[in-house]
């Protein structure tokens, strides 16, 4: 956090915000329960509603409680988390793919190419995650100052390694 974010006024503002977010999270939980008790929903719909509310709550926690809102310029956190979530999404995608590949009555047969693509994705995702993380960590990144583009110098630095 930069210095302006340490001022007493800002902390007072933050504290108010924390109470507000706490209220939002409790309300979100109550809404989830009420929706589940009151409405009869199919599994798919229940999943969409329940997980949407959870996602909303989660983004409040990350943005305010974990003060990501004021940290997000920092490339380290953002990229680490984005890549992790891409990895996670890939994992879920693979599962869906595997599930879609099981032949069942009343379902069209899936072309052979899909499972092959799925396994490729399963290899590429973690690999790219690892490569990008290493690249990112080995690259000095100016945070507060404006980045000065020096493509030649950078290439030379990476060659050395």
């Amino acid at each position, binding site marked *: 956090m930069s210095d302006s974010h340490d001022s007493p006024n800002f902390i007072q503002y933050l504290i108010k915000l924390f109470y507000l977010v706490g209220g939002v999270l409790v309300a979100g*939980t109550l809404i989830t329960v009420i929706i*589940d008790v009151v409405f009869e929903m199919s*599994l798919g719909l229940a999943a969409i509603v329940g997980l949407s509310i959870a996602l909303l709550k989660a983004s409040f*926690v990350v943005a305010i409680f974990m003060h990501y809102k004021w940290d997000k310029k920092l490339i380290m*956190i953002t990229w680490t988390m984005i*890549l992790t979530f891409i990895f996670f999404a890939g994992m879920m995608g693979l*599962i869906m793919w595997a599930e879609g590949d099981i032949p069942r009555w009343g379902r069209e047969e899936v072309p052979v190419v899909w499972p092959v693509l799925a396994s490729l994705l399963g290899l590429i995702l973690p690999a790219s995650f690892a490569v990008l993380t290493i690249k990112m960590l080995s690259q000095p990144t100016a*945070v507060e100052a404006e980045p000065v583009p020096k493509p030649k110098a950078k290439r030379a630095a990476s060659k050395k390694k």
Partner: protein
Amino acid sequence: MEIPYTVKPRPDTGLYNGKLGIWLFLASEVMLFGALFSSYVLLRVGAADGTWSMGLMDIVVGAGNTMVLIASSMFVVLAWAQLKQGKLSGPWSSPRNWGYIQWKWATVACAVIFLIVKWSYEWPSKFVHYDVWFKNSAVLHDKVEEGYHHDGEYHKAELWGEEKDKKFSLARLYVEKEIYVERFFKTYSEEDGGSHKAFNKAWDTGSLALSGHINGYEEAQINVEVTGWKPDAGVSESEADKILLGLGISGEDDVAKRLRSQGGLLRGNVSYDVAKRAEYKLTKSGFSVALSVAGYEPVEAHPYFWRTGRINEDIGGKPRVKSIRFALDASHHEENGETHHKEITINTADVKRLNSYEPKHSTFFGIYYTITGLHAAHVFGGIIVMLYNLLPIGLATWHRDREQYTNRIETFGLFWHFVDLVWIFLFPILYIL
């Protein structure tokens, strides 16, 4: 040793080291829990229609616990905000003026409440809760009639037209009493006959069960008989006699010697535990032993961990448990402000499977205990770190370098929010989907 960049951001990363470390750790945690979440999804989606054990969770308790964890998450960030203002401690009497220490203890209290609810209610209440499946659907039907057709509470409903046979009357009963409709067939709408179809399938595959508690049972009283003794087991005659005497026979008239040489009844009508212990000791010292059931005694109990294998354990050709007094969940009435559950007697000979809601019960409980257990371990670890930070040894850092301590608390807060975050997703997945 001076650790660099505990306060000032490192120029290349733009973060102090602790913060970068915790974010990388959280990234690895996302992958750990991500793997478990996706396993859950795979198992959930792959489960055959109507077999996922939903509705077994107490959603009110779950929601309450969720809010306790949310509160703790808010308290931990308030504690950090107080530190940022330089306020270590305030008066306990006015929460408006609480300092870091007060908010931190409040966080610890919430975390402890969360674990206590898990440890003393949510998990153990499932260990004493049973599902029983029957070998024959006709027996199931009789048991349902016995258990639900009482006090004029059950009356026939016109759900699926004419009563064709026992199967359909049972199906109607199930629907009417919402025993299984609510629980297993939630995803089916009744207009399209979905429940009907699912019920037929469940009937045909024998996957319908009754759920409730075991109030008591008839357990075998066992005769322990000695049938012979081998002197080549490395135990001398006097030692073998001593073992016999230790098992409670009288020392007169060479009873031990006669038992050793000719065999005979060692003890009659003893409980299972005593008989098994005697069998173990005797076998170890070269005796051959025969256990047989002398009779069955009713036992009042609230047992943990009964399973099909244990109730049917073979003792001289008879089962260890003859019958179970089973209090049905869904059949109850109020009397003097107390809820009474209808109790039926189930012969263990009719039981195909008996299992409490432990991991072995179903895939759902397998993954349920894995995920909630790992999450609870995180909460427990968090409590230990918080307590360390509150102890003088932890607070010494504050007196040495305020900013370093504040950063340490911020770092812990990030971990704690992540634990909260995991639970925010776990709650709808485990309790609602």
